[in-house]
């Protein structure tokens, strides 16, 4: 049984189609990265899965429960780690966990709290108020709160947005532990590195739809080849290089102040300038080629 099944799901907000005929299936035990820029529909998709948004049309099933009617039952088996920090900051670490252990109907609340404190590595801070914790500790607590009931499915909504690299690494470690335990994970992100590092499969989302899906290395091989050449030059030269590369059958995408010639290993002599910077092809290359949009 798939953990998540979405078929032709549509969700509009006024004139905006945030989710536009979305088809998405996530097998049990899979860690799927939902990669896309802001406004792609990732957060709306997350809210649809928890029943905090109701689809206009389409079929939704989470852990065998049909949504929206079965949303509460689905949430009982699902953990959510939100993008925004919504901990009770004046309340202690263990009280924050105890509240959610009760909300998730954990049979043994003290044991669930202890387990969560171990996961977050906050045993010695259990009686401290949340506002006394560092940013990294708060993020670990947020993750532990979403996992306190040992859910079958975990939704991570932009788990490391706005975090500094050190804290991001801590969160990645936690997610890595979850993956090792075989928990089904759906993680939305707009960070390429995060998707490549943590997800077994990546689904590229743009304008409310999935445009490509697969293992990161296979997506790159299929759509972007092995190497990408970045050319940093004034606009006139970039335009000339672009025209020559496209005439040679290569794909070229904007890359900030440069242009990126994708699949540079297939280039014939002279197409890729000598001063180009060669690097391995990436998911970002794939995304920009397929959507024409850049990830922020």
């Amino acid at each position, binding site marked *: 049984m798939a953990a998540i099944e979405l078929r032709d799901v549509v969700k509009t907000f006024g004139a905006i189609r945030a989710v536009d005929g979305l088809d998405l299936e996530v097998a049990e035990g899979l860690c799927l990265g939902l990669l896309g820029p802001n406004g792609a529909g990732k957060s*709306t998709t997350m*809210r649809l899965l*928890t029943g905090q948004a109701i689809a206009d049309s389409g079929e939704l099933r989470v852990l065998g429960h049909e949504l929206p009617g079965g949303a509460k039952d689905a949430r009982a088996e699902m953990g959510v780690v939100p993008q925004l920090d*919504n901990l*009770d900051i004046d*309340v202690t670490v263990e009280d924050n966990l*105890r*509240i959610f252990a009760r*909300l998730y109907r954990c049979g043994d609340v003290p044991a669930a709290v202890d387990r969560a404190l171990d996961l977050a590595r906050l045993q010695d801070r259990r009686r401290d108020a949340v506002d006394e914790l560092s940013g990294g500790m708060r993020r670990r607590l947020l993750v532990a709160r979403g996992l306190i009931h040992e859910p079958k499915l975990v939704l991570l909504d932009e788990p490391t947005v706005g975090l500094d690299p050190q804290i991001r690494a801590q969160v990645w470690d936690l997610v890595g532990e979850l993956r090792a335990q075989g928990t089904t994970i759906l993680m939305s992100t707009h960070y390429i590195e995060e998707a490549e590092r943590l997800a077994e499969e990546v689904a590229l989302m743009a304008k409310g739809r999935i445009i490509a899906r697969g293992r990161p290395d296979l997506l790159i091989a299929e759509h972007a080849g092995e190497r990408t050449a970045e050319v940093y030059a004034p606009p006139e030269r970039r335009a000339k290089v672009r025209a020559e590369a496209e005439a040679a059958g290569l794909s070229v995408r904007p890359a900030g102040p440069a242009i990126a010639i994708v699949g540079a290993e297939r280039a014939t002599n002279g197409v890729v300038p000598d001063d180009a910077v060669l690097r391995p092809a990436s998911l970002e290359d794939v995304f920009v080629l397929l959507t024409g949009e850049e990830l922020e």
Partner: protein
Amino acid sequence: MRRLEPAAITGVMSREVANFRTFWKSTVFSSTVEPIVYLLAFGLGLGATIVTQIDGLDYVEFVGTGMVATAVIFSSVFPAMFGTFVKHRFQNTYDAILAAPVDVEELVTAEMLWIGLRAAVFGCFPLLITILFFGLDPEWGMFLVPFFCFVTSLGFAGFGIAVAGTVAKIDQFNYVTTLLITPMFLVAGTFFPIDELPEGAQVVANFNPLYQLVELVRAAAFGFEATDLIRLGVLILFAFVAWRIAIRQLTKRLID
């Protein structure tokens, strides 16, 4: 899963209790001291100078029993309005709770019950102070006052939650406070009887839940009548209607 699960409701209430433990001293202080100030100002101030008795009651006893309603409305509608708005808009607390197996109906029920229980306790303070310091004789009927306060504050909590689920900006609460809450507070029979008001105002005052509470508290202190059952029924109806409207309004706000 069933509707209105006790585990969901008590779980949400446990969050309120945990937070209340961090600020209970200031809340209890203001809920205790404020009625004393009002009683001194109106009860002894006015009572010693301009008004000595109303309807056969010493003015301080008239005001002391009326102040119960004041304590109830201030400890229910404002925490409901502002607390709900802040938790939703600034703290994203409800997003966290609704990601768990809790629905909006349970969330609203829990919030109303918590506010109701608190206000039931705070509502009794003016009565206790009037008994202890201003000579009001205790009566067995007064044991029902916490229940009357609880039912009334449920209604005002629901009202406050419904308002919070409706307004777009926090300063829009000013309209509700000025146009509804302040008139309700002033024309509830707390500081003066409504009998002397124009007939139209008297009719309107009868629809004021606070007036019904004031009359019930005075009945508890000075003797019940059969019509007091109707008053209680009105308050229960007010609480029920406010509950359902609060659920509807907050659902519109929280569920896209």
